[in-house]
């Protein structure tokens, strides 16, 4: 009896093995912020975006079995690295996506290179990922600090905002954003009249706003993110900034932040994003699916989440071309060879340093009376073509370029 059972099991295992020989298994790990400040701009929304990409891809490629797992890096590089190692070594994850928070991302890109897997960086901002820290296992989707500074800074100066005062978050990210934007402002004929550096997670900005008002600068540049940006704009509206002669320029603002502010408060704000849910029919249809899958009809996907979807799709195409996900470097090389094409970012390319080139858009937040339906946040002011939106290849100091 037992013998027959063992034989039957053996036979079953053999047939399974034969079946999976034609099948390609890919495992994707979405390493993200599930519980803290970036949860709404990434988090469960990013995991869902990866699942949607997997689903869409498997429809056209029935021989693929794509599995999506997720983890919370808690914005701590050590936690992120530990999860990444566990995923790759034990759970055979082939690609890590998302990773908001540049600090964690700079650690993960090294893990991916060491273990020859793929890091699809759609969440982090640091342009160093495609600069001095670039490697052949990483692709940087969505945005970076250079692009944000350049796009918003240039456009605002051109529209007459030629004197600036910076409210800067007092850590590496804020300093970099301020430095890059100030350079752009000055290169375009503008002037920086002053700056104040505030500690991260400041709840009251009134004192800083008074200083900004006293400077008489036309533009108050917000080189900060998340709650700090929201607090500064919310209190700025109270002090008459935005509706009067002084305006804010948000250097990193997501649609989720605009949603948190409400249009009444955020109106008139200039910002740059590479994806907006209400761009065209394809993005709208995708948004509807995303909202239905997450059961959050009053939340809108932001560019990071769109980046997870588009990046995952492009990654899977490269795996299909190679018929294997085993060699991360080869997959990334394949991703760079083929142009990108997806419903959310349109057509683009992946440059040799890992930078994905797609257009960026300068938006202005609508006035409440201009907004026709929930989520109708932005007016498109300018489109920055893909070849101008990102840092020129030669300025990045990426070893892959010189070598």
């Amino acid at each position, binding site marked *: 009896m037992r013998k027959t059972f063992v034989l039957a099991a053996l036979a079953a295992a053999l047939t399974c093995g034969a079946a999976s020989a034609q099948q390609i298994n890919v495992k994707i790990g979405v390493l993200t912020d599930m519980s803290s400040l970036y949860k709404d701009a990434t988090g469960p929304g990013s995991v869902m975006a990866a699942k949607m990409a997997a689903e869409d891809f498997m429809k056209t490629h029935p021989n693929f079995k794509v599995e999506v797992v997720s983890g919370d890096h808690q914005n701590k590089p050590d936690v992120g690295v530990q999860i990444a190692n566990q995923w790759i070594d034990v759970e055979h994850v082939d690609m890590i996506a998302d990773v908001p928070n540049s600090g964690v991302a700079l650690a993960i890109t090294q893990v991916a290179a060491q273990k020859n897997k793929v890091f699809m960086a759609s969440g982090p901002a640091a342009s160093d990922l495609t600069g001095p820290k670039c490697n052949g296992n990483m692709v940087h989707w969505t945005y970076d600090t250079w692009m944000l500074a350049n796009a918003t800074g240039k456009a605002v100066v051109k529209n007459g905002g030629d004197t600036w005062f910076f409210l800067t978050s007092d850590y590496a990210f804020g300093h970099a954003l301020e430095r890059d934007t100030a350079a752009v402002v000055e290169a375009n004929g503008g002037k920086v009249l002053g700056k104040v550096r*505030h*500690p991260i997670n400041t709840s009251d900005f009134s004192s800083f706003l008074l200083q900004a008002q006293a400077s008489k600068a036309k533009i108050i540049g917000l080189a900060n993110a998340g*709650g700090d940006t*929201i607090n500064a704009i919310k209190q700025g509206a109270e002090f*008459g900034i935005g509706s009067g002669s002084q305006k804010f320029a948000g250097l990193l603002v997501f649609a989720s932040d605009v949603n948190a502010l409400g249009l009444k408060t955020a109106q008139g704000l200039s910002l740059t994003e590479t994806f907006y849910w209400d761009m065209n029919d394809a993005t709208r249809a995708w948004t509807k699916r995303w909202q239905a899958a997450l059961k959050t009809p009053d939340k809108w996907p932001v560019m990071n989440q769109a980046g997870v979807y588009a990046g995952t799709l492009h990654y899977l195409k490269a795996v299909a071309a190679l018929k294997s996900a085993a060699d991360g470097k080869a997959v990334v090389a394949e991703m760079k060879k083929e142009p990108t094409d997806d419903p959310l970012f349109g057509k683009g390319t992946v440059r040799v340093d890992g930078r994905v080139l797609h257009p960026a858009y300068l938006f202005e937040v609508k006035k409440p009376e201009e907004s026709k339906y929930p989520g109708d946040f932005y007016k498109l002011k300018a489109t920055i073509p893909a070849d101008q939106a990102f840092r020129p290849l030669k300025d990045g100091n990426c070893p892959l370029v010189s070598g």
Partner: protein
Amino acid sequence: MVDIFGIPSAALFGQLLIGLINGSFYALLSLGLAVIFGMLNIINFTHGAQYMLGALSAFLLLKYSGLGYWSALIVAPVLVGIVGVIIERMFLQWLYKLDHLYGLLLTFGLALIIEGVSRNYLGSAGLPYALPDSLRGGQNLGFMFLPNYRVWVIVASLTVCLGTWFVIERTRLGANLRAATENPMLVRAFGINVPRMITLTYGFGVALAAFAGVMAAPIYNVSPNMGSELIIVVFAVVVIGGMGSILGAIVTGFGLGIVEGLTKVFFPEASNTVIFVIMAIVLLISPAGLFGRRA
């Protein structure tokens, strides 16, 4: 124009005024903490979460029942106060006889649970809450633009602070309460229901936190993290003022608001730290705080 340390005096007046207004927030929050510690001997680490619940309730009341800012100012503190009463009845009442540490751990754990659950349902980016129309705009004082809402904050906060101080220090109810803290057995012998009084005091302290939360909703980002960002500063205020001293909490709240405001002008990078530097100095010189009674 006269310059003071390189800053025009007019700008400095503006900053002093702003500091005073921020101080009134600290005073309002530390008042609730001081009442709870003074009367119940509980270090209420849930205070930040309860402040956050006040702001979230204001948002939810507006969204689901159309209640505006002014109604929320009354309804939200009552609702959150009831939550406080439930917490006191279910958990805290068993801890009065134990070491402070137990109360601290319990309330800290509760704060984490409340914040985690709110984050799960409402996300972390924040929720919109606009200024009430009647308080929009502001006054041009010549040396600065003073938003009307800030004037309202300082008026409301002063009224609530002085009212609370008056009730506890100058009325019969307050006298009973203070007596019950000193010697509950004796006060019970006079026919006063001490446990109920303690429960209501906790509810009141929590309602104060929620009130501050509603006051904060139109100007600060309404998010599940808003309490934990502020609570540490408020604890420092209470420690400097003297644990449990109500007058100490109020005076220190306003005073530290001004100190912080000035730091934001002269050395903005240190504006988060300055309060803790002062706390360290005060603890070295007078361990019971500026207004505390020595044990």
